């Protein structure tokens, strides 16, 4: 049996780790390499590096950062941010990432998922989804890195999950936007709805504020793991202590 994964996400903008609330008002919370190294030591099961500016300013995540982090850590390493084609992806992977995560570029060109899966294998291809509950429906948003560029795609989240699985996505990170940065718990309702037709691993994202929130999402949903950013960056929750806590609740967690 696989253990449930605890995944810190470094949201990076202009070379610093930042955090906003519901995708706005980003503040600097730490340095990239210090936090990557700390999480690695603290027992993180994976690290996500997400250049939140990359899709909005039309850039690609900095490969120099990818290389430096990859040299430092000995856990799986996923990189996201503005990867728009095979060349971008290859560059990131060659610099030491194990997986690439795509979000807005996949919405702009869904075939990119298939191209990446054919070239590198599905296990390499993560699709991030920013999903918001609006007008009684779950809808996918794109270009969420900046409030000026954010866009309602009109695509229903459930339909998008079907489509990306068919195209070869190997994992999904479902970021529940209504919960982003507000720290009142993961979106259990939405996660359970989306997990119904999900055959690939799904990682819950958005809403972590307390250790109990992690317990809830890992016991009340079939999510493969829980991703969080600010509670770890601001040291509100220590990953080691969190994993002890979850183990004591009989959740299958790696030592």
């Amino acid at each position: 049996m696989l253990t449930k994964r605890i995944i810190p996400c470094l949201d990076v903008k202009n070379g610093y780790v930042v955090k906003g609330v519901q995708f706005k008002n980003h503040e600097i919370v730490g340095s990239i390499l210090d936090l990557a190294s700390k999480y690695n030591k603290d027992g993180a099961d994976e690290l996500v590096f997400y250049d939140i500016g990359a899709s909005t300013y039309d850039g690609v995540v900095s490969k120099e950062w990818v290389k430096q982090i990859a040299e430092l850590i000995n856990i799986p390493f996923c990189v996201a941010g503005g990867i728009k084609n095979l060349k971008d992806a290859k560059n990131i992977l060659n610099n030491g990432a194990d997986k690439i995560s795509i979000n807005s570029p996949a919405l702009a060109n869904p075939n990119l998922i298939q191209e990446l899966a054919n070239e590198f294998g599905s296990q390499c291809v993560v699709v991030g989804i920013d999903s918001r509950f609006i007008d009684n429906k779950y809808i996918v948003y794109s270009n969420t890195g900046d409030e000026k560029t954010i866009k309602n795609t009109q695509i229903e989240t459930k339909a998008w999950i079907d489509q990306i699985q068919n195209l070869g996505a190997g994992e999904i990170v479902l970021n529940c936007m209504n919960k982003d940065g507000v720290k009142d718990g993961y979106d259990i309702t939405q996660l359970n709805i989306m997990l119904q037709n999900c055959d690939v691993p799904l990682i819950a994202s958005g809403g972590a504020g307390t250790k109990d929130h992690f317990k809830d999402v890992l016991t009340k949903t079939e999510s493969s793991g829980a991703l969080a950013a600010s509670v770890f960056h601001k040291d509100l929750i220590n990953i080691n202590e969190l994993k002890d806590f979850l183990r004591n609740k009989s959740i299958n967690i790696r030592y």
Partner: protein
Amino acid sequence: MKIGIVDSGGANLNSIYYSFKRLNIDSFISNSLDELSQMDALVLPGVGSAGKVMETLSNKNLDSFIKETNKPVLGICIGMQILFDYSEEDNTECLGLIKGTITKFNKKDVIAVPQMGWNKVECMLDNTLDGYYYFANSYFNKNSDYTVGYSTYGNQFSSIIKKDNLLGCQFHPEKSSDAGEVFLKNFINSI
């Protein structure tokens, strides 16, 4: 000591290179028969698909070299799978060094395909290698005459194999934190 990382065409060969570097071991990424012949041990890294990896090895005449070498060889993930006779992935004839086949996880038996995450490994040869390791695979070997470590995902499967100079692991030791480092040191010590 020099370890040759066989460039079998996939991306992210640096992951394993960095892990040797963290252990202060010199390793070299190469697809040249001449260069790899001079190494003390070889690693078949865990990237790519069976068909593409075998095609690259054969184009570079590395397939017969690996078949004939007596040097210690570590095959990681797909690098372990190609040591077997045949893989369902791309219907690929593999190196045939170990009797057995590689098949795909059945969605009926498991929660999700690919298997992605940390799974428990029990090693029959050496219980200091027991622990949690990182897996990312859709294909697996169920059981072989040379399986020395097992894990369970839906059903039991081979997570470590050992035959003569060949060592294979279905997981990624280079991504498996402290447990992975112990595994790699063990391989290094055997060279």
